[in-house]
């Protein structure tokens, strides 16, 4: 797995636009939650208590969030544990970004990794952009907001797989 810091201005495609839009909003509102927050249904809110060893406790999972898609409906009350149990290495690898954001950094990264889907013999490259920033939700301490979106390269891979599934089915 490779994690690279990326200037949000250099994030390409629709994913880049969505991340730039949310970042602009957070700067504009001084990172305070308001009901008109863009990308609300794609984001995840986590606890500010981020050790860097694990993904912090997850408070809100947007219905169209990438992680929800990846977890394929495993939707218990402790989402962070579900991720940890499914893929401990992934949990550890991505946890650092949450810890840095908890310290006040605005985290913008490109994450590249390979996954082996169930039943597949070969690995598939996966790449996504992510934003992690602090968000004030009314409590004395902020939470973290995380927007993770597949890059356009990943999106094309996804379409290719869908196409192939379609051809196989016929």
């Amino acid at each position, binding site marked *: 797995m490779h994690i690279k810091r990326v200037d949000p201005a250099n994030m390409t495609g629709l994913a880049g636009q969505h991340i730039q839009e949310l970042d602009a909003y957070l700067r504009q509102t001084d990172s305070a939650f308001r009901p008109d927050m863009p990308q609300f249904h794609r984001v995840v809110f986590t*606890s500010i208590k981020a050790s860097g060893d694990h993904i912090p406790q997850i408070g809100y*999972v947007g219905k169209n969030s990438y992680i929800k898609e990846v977890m394929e409906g495993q939707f218990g009350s402790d989402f962070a544990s579900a991720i940890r149990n499914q893929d401990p290495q992934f949990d550890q690898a991505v946890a650092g970004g949450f810890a840095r954001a908890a310290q006040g950094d605005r985290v913008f990264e490109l994450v590249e990794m390979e996954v082996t889907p169930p039943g597949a013999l070969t690995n598939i490259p996966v790449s996504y952009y992510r934003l992690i920033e602090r968000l004030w939700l009314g409590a*004395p301490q902020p939470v973290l907001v995380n927007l993770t979106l597949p890059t356009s390269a990943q999106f094309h891979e996804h379409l290719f797989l869908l196409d192939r599934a379609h051809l196989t089915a016929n």
Partner: protein
Amino acid sequence: MTDLQTFLDNEAEAYADMFEGGYVIRGFIRSIIEGYDGKSDWREFTPEERSEIILNCHRIVELLRRAEEG
């Protein structure tokens, strides 16, 4: 609890007493509900959607309560 406005009012009132920023939860819950294709009556939601909404409310309240405890 079928009327959206009643639901929001009841939830917001309950959360406002629980921690300092409880009033923000009203906007938060409204934003969640607005993501479900304009549904505005509790009876219009599927059981899965209801569970999803309630779990999200439950988890965020837990997170904020812990934040308040420090």
